[in-house]
């Protein structure tokens, strides 16, 4: 195999695959404890309302009810704590005001789910409804209803004097944008809107909490980050970290949406009050009403280019909905908006704006897909006005190593140029469209990935197998890609590496599995742990042979003192003699700060063919090719799965998905019958094309693969619709009704 690699680059059956497809995997709601009670959450029917009083007397009097909790059961934030400490509490259980329809107000624990449900109906909450604000631009207007009366806009200009729904204003700039626009021969300016969409994971949130006699808390939960949940619980409950054990279950999809804790503290409060374990599982309607969707946005973008095909400037305003609490992904949106291009002059202003909807959460490359929907359409339009091939135009302006990004950083080695070239060379790009009303679109997308902190241990067994333990939650097959890297370094077959995702009491710290970081950073920790094992094994061999440690080498087949020496032991043979060598068991340890090591961002270039029915506005996706630089595909099959999954979600975002709100702020599509996710009937065969431009800061070149593939998809489809119809699409989702409006077939709403 190339590079002498034996495990990296192969396609073994992933760990846990059999359990998942045979229904044996243990997910959040599969936990059952003796004496366990069932919790239910009472949610505000109002999008914005003052809570006058909560009377739970009748609920507590119902037979089978063991506990009712409200915000009053949460210890208050410490004096002087920043506002985010208060928001962390109010997010879990509303106090003072309900800020969106679905905001938790109280919770009940009962002997069975039906009794808990009945008890919710007996809790009397007196609300004073307030006018809600549901649109990002409306929320910014003078006189708009304020969600948090004390909130002032934070920016590097200082804290604003007046209260506002704008939590943060961010500005990135380089060069002189006015000059750049003046130098342009063509300028395109458009405004885009994208709807609130949900991550659409199939497993609802579930948490089970139990306290022991010493007052220590254990929580089983479906999460992307057990250690984050532990920190959240410690902060809210005022407990030392060491007295909380968070056990991550298998996870039935997260896509960023399970990086935030919703139920864990509620289950813990109920369990403490009831004196018994409590499990809380969300219904689908609760998932859609009350867990982090991604931001709806308004984006205004103006870009200019010269006749020679060089971009001269870009000026953008990004307005991202945060929902009920600050935290829209404006940083990533602003950073990714122009990432693909080497533009001399640019300015991006981005605003994090509160509205009366559930707080937005991360969703696969948070903030980037919306921004790219704008950029890639404007770039496409510029190419068209200049009479240039859209990929050639992008290549002429593509970001490259050493170029300065809008953030002021210099690009390290990246694969922007390479993915565009691979797309250009792909047969799909030149294939005939084969029919009327068909169009082909392309788009370029970027996600920066992340490093974060990770750790692993590897214990060597006497039969030559090893046990790898990590605290990194396996969201999408990371166990396998982590173990493969360890196996490669150890010179073992993957079957000899047993990998376990530990809980917060048994495994070392790991940041949340997010930002496409796990195969990179936890992989690095596994490599470090494997190298530590080899160092210790060499030391044991030296003891056995009575030679200096430096005289022993390991060539991934055997330990020896020199080539051809009789002193030679395979890993398995030496593992059997570790006890004899003295020095105790061999346990390797690896811990890394992935940010310090240097993670690498990933570019993707998509080509898509669509057919638009001019009578109905229906779009059929005919063919899809997704090219992506992943640095190095540790497990190409899993990487291809990530690319296909990202495209499928991008198709849903482009054509179908969108939360529909009534004027009072209540969500109308609260089931998967009404919230349309793409199915196998909507997604064509997606052809993934892996490009490998190694990240120089990882021994195997890993960048991360999970998020980039969603980023260009809606823009590529919008460009394809344009080339099929001659009309630009400026909103997501591009439903049949919207397309017919744009075509002038029907009037707009």
């Amino acid at each position, binding site marked *: 195999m190339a590079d002498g690699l034996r495990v990296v680059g192969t396609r073994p059956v992933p760990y846990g695959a059999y359990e998942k497809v045979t229904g044996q995997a243990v997910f959040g709601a599969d936990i059952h404890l003796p004496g366990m009670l069932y919790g239910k959450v009472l949610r505000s029917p109002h999008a914005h309302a003052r809570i006058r009083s909560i009377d739970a007397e009748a609920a507590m009097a119902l037979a089978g009810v063991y506990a009712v909790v409200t915000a009053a059961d949460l210890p208050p934030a410490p004096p002087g704590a*920043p506002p*985010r400490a208060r928001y962390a509490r109010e997010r879990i259980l509303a106090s003072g005001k309900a800020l969106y329809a679905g905001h938790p107000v109280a919770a009940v624990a009962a002997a069975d789910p039906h009794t808990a449900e009945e008890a919710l109906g007996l809790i009397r909450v007196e609300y004073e409804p307030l006018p809600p604000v549901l649109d990002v631009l409306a929320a910014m207007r003078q006189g708009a209803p304020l969600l948090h009366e004390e909130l002032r806009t934070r*920016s*590097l*200009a*200082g804290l604003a004097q007046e209260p506002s729904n704008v939590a*943060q*204003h*961010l*500005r*990135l*700039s380089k060069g002189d944008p006015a000059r750049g626009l003046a130098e342009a021969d063509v300028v395109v300016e458009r405004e885009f809107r994208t709807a609130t969409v949900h991550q659409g994971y199939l497993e609802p949130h579930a948490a089970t909490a139990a306290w022991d006699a010493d007052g220590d808390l254990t929580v089983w939960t479906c999460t992307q980050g057990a250690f984050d949940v532990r920190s959240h619980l410690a902060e809210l409950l005022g407990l030392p970290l060491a007295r909380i054990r968070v056990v991550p279950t298998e996870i039935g999809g997260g*896509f*960023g*949406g399970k*990086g935030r804790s919703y139920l864990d503290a509620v289950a813990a409060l109920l369990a403490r009050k009831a004196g018994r374990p409590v499990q809380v599982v969300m219904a689908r309607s609760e998932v859609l009403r009350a867990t982090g969707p991604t931001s709806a946005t308004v984006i205004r973008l103006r870009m200019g280019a010269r006749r020679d095909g060089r971009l001269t400037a870009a000026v953008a305003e990004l307005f991202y909905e945060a929902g009920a609490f600050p935290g829209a992904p*404006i*940083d*990533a949106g*602003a*950073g990714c908006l122009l990432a693909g291009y080497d533009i001399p002059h640019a*300015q991006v202003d981005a605003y994090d704006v509160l509205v009366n909807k559930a707080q937005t*959460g*991360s*969703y*696969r*490359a*948070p903030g980037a897909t919306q921004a790219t929907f704008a950029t890639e359409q404007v770039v496409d339009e510029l190419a068209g006005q200049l009479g240039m091939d859209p990929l050639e135009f992008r290549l002429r302006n593509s970001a490259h190593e050493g170029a*300065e990004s809008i*953030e*002021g*950083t*210099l690009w*390290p080695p990246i694969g922007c140029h390479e993915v565009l070239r691979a797309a250009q060379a792909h047969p799909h790009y030149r294939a005939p469209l084969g029919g009327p009303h068909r169009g082909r679109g392309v788009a370029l997308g970027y*996600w*920066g*990935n*992340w*490093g*974060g902190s990770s750790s692993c241990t590897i214990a060597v067994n006497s039969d030559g197998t090893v046990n790898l333990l990590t605290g990194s939650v396996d969201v999408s097959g990371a166990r396998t890609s982590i173990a493969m890297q360890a196996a490669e370094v150890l010179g073992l077959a993957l079957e000899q590496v047993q990998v376990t995702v530990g809980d917060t009491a048994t495994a070392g710290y790991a940041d949340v599995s*997010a*930002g*496409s*970081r796990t195969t990179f950073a936890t992989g690095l920790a596994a490599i470090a742990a494997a190298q530590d094992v080899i160092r210790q094994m060499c030391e044991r061999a030296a003891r056995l042979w009575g030679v200096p440690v430096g005289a022993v080498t390991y060539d991934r087949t055997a330990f020896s003192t020199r080539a051809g020496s009789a002193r030679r032991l395979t890993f398995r043979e030496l593992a059997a003699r570790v006890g004899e060598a003295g020095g105790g068991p061999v346990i390797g340890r690896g811990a890394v*700060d992935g*940010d*310090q090591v*240097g993670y690498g961002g990933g570019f993707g270039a998509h080509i898509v063919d669509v057919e638009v029915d001019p009578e109905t506005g229906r779009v059929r996706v005919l063919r899809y090719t997704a090219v992506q630089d992943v640095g190095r595909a540790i497990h190409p099959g899993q990487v291809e799965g990530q690319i296909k999954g990202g495209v499928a979600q991008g198709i849903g975002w482009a054509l179908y998905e969108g939360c529909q709100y009534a004027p009072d702020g209540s969500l109308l599509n609260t089931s998967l019958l009404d919230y349309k996710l793409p199915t196998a009937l909507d997604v064509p065969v997606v052809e993934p094309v892996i490009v490998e431009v190694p990240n120089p800061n990882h021994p195997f070149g890993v960048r991360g693969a999970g*998020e980039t593939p969603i980023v260009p998809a809606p823009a590529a489809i919008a460009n394809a619709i344009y080339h099929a119809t001659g009309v630009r699409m400026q909103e997501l989702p591009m439903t049949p009704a919207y397309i017919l409006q744009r075509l002038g077939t029907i009037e707009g709403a």
Partner: protein
Amino acid sequence: MPVLHIPPLMRDLTGGRPQVRVRGQTVGEAIEALDAAYPGTKARLCEGERLAPGLAVAVDGRRAAQGLHTPLGEESEVRFLPAVAGG
């Protein structure tokens, strides 16, 4: 001396200057020196003895993981940029 690139929204404190040269062997020391010359700048960049939430620093074109402790060379260029994490 290292050069600090002043974010556009902070230039009201530096009289419109987009760059300021200050002494400092770390990012933290450079910010202290900046604040001495242009009072109020540290309060916008830092929360206590750490970079403000959501803020990161790049030194010589590369994001620096050590924040205020990042060492600076004599000719280092320092920029402030958003901290980003993913889904």
